[in-house]
């Protein structure tokens, strides 16, 4: 069976996945560089060396993400909405509703029985429903982005935040810091503001069946758990892979479908 690849060049991170026989044999994630082409090359390079194969071994490669049009080694490009849907179904074979929050965008999609995206809604309103919002806030709080999620559980009296605008939320956060509110309470407020915004989008597509979350923000446990409360449903976890890789995985699966019709994604 052939080796395939998927490459997802996002606004904040670039990811590449190499698959063989429906299994991941190598993957790599890096912070995006100014030129998407460079990001793609570096991510693929990393994944190739992790898998111990060379570029020539790749039978087919699909590119996705914001920078998809600029990747020169791919055979085809597909939008990340479709790819995240595919990837999510692979990671959680029962997934029907997928929430993907990346750096610039937040989307919710419903999958049909074949793992194709049936309906989706994307956040156009404002950057405050995106991973970038969390990053800006983490910076203001002088903490690491992986720390932010954990604050929710530690908060005693979370603040309510201007969830409508990153710029103004930032001003508010600074005010709270200045008035001596604990970092935990502020962090929890930040995560909640984000979750509220995402919940509106999720509820707009009327979630059904198993829900799964992809994209970097899926790793923020505070957002995830608050979101569960807001939509009143559990979001399923999967240990199969890093949810941030879902787009790249989806792209690789589509590559596989392309060459041998496998990668079948029927709802199990």
């Amino acid at each position: 069976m052939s080796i395939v690849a998927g490459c997802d060049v996002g606004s904040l991170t670039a990811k590449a996945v190499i698959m063989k026989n429906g299994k991941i044999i190598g993957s790599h994630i890096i912070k995006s560089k100014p030129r998407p082409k460079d990001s793609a090359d570096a991510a693929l390079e990393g994944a190739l060396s992790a898998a111990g194969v060379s570029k020539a071994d790749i039978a087919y490669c699909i590119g996705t993400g914001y920078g998809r049009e600029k990747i020169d080694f791919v055979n085809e490009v597909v939008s990340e909405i479709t790819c995240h849907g595919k990837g999510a179904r692979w990671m959680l074979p029962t997934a029907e509703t997928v929430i993907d929050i990346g750096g610039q965008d937040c989307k919710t999609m419903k999958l049909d029985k074949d793992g194709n995206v049936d309906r989706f809604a994307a956040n156009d309103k404002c950057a405050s429903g995106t991973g970038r919002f969390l990053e800006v806030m983490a910076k203001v709080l002088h903490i690491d982005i992986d720390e932010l999620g954990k604050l929710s559980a530690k908060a005693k009296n979370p603040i309510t935040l201007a969830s409508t605008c990153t710029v103004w939320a930032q001003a508010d956060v600074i005010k709270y810091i200045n008035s001596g509110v604990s970092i935990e309470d502020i962090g929890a407020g930040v995560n909640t503001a984000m979750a509220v915004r995402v919940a509106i989008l999720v509820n707009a597509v009327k979630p059904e069946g198993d829900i799964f979350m992809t994209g970097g923000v899926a790793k923020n446990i505070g957002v995830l758990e608050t979101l569960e409360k807001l939509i009143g449903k559990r979001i399923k976890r999967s240990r199969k892979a890093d949810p941030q890789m879902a787009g790249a995985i989806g792209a690789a699966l589509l590559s596989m479908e392309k060459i041998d019709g496998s990668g079948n994604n029927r709802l199990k």
Partner: protein
Amino acid sequence: MRPEIEEYHYDWLMGNTLKASAILPLGTKKETELAYRYVPYYKNVVKSFIDAGDPGVQTLVMLAKYYENILTAKARGKKIAATTFCNSPVILYAMDIVPVTFEILTAVGAMVWKRGMFDYMDFCCEVGMPETSCSSQRGALGAVLAGLCEQIDMIICDTPGVCDTNANAFAFASAYMDKPFFQLNYPSSIGDNRSQQYHIDDYKEMIKFAEQHSGNKLDYDRLAQVLAEVDKQDAMIADLEDMLMLKPTPVPPLFNLALYAGRFCFSGHPQYTTLLESMVASAKQNAEAGISGLKNREEKLRVFMCYIDHYTVDVNFYNYLEERGIVHVGSILTRNFRDNTPYAKEMPGSTYGVDTSTPEAMLDTIAQMNARLPMVRSIRGPYDKKGMWLEESLVCAKMYQADCLIYNGTPGCRNTWGMVKPFARDIEKHGYPCHIMYDDAFDDRVESWEATRERLDEFFKIRGLL
């Protein structure tokens, strides 16, 4: 929407909360203090009202009655009409239809609830209302669309020509729930024969619509009674307005809120008369003693809110004014354009009179009255045209001896945000410092109250006002 929120019938929840708070002061002072402990979440707001004395308590009673009226409507075989605060409920009371005014429900929720109306506002966005639309409708509308309120039978709105986002919210509600819809429409001018006639023609059609969908015929005797009550109320409002002009003014800031809340809830209804009587009596007492209506009795500054007030949790805004010794000389919502009020005399064509001699005269009265409700009157046309926002604000500022003007609204207010910058510039040219608040009167997630307060303090300090 959070699943636990969906468990509660909104009107019922709010109605009972208000009912409970309205009976709190019936006990002894000590009992009341004790009872506060059991209502940690709305203690502050209830306390603010109760501390305002009998008028405050009357306001609570009135709000409780308003909800009771809604909650018992179906059992009493009455129809419910959703409407907006720019539309006077007078005609609905005269026709025995129960009004549900979205903005009142939203404001009450925002004041009383710790989480404000956020969940309902967001629910509106979930079903597709733009989140940039006005929050004053979005709150209550969310609860209605989620089916957490008494079923509405028809929708009557009067903001086409005045405010898009408002009219649009009602049009959306009607399409979403498939309910009969009527819009009163206002041209951009006021006071000339042509627009006067338009108001009357339009109003008559509205009555036809209400008759058709409620099954009740307009009873002119009853209308005469209601208008007589309005007449009484107008006289008392004029008294309050007179006292507001005194320096120091004997009228506490919170009375402004009560004044217009009463008009929106119960104009032409004895319930509002009771509230007004209580307010007038209380203010008169202060006036006779020559003291300020502020709690600490020291008037430091007089502010005219050229638009609306701020309503989020615990009536923070009014308490802030009290704390800082600031007098509130009214907002666009407090003004009543009855022909005998002094400020109205400076603005010919802007007023209405009450004439109950014939059915036709009554219809004219009520149509003209409706055309002079807040917003409908002053922001329908270009702000600098005769009788519009600028003129009104300047006349009021002068008459009530305001030291400065403050604009507060909601980001959803397309209408005023479209012109507030040039407006503020013009106001400043007339020598009044003018502050534009960038928050949302009903949603403190847009700007936290702390931040809002800081900006206010900064304004007062930098402009040498406090």
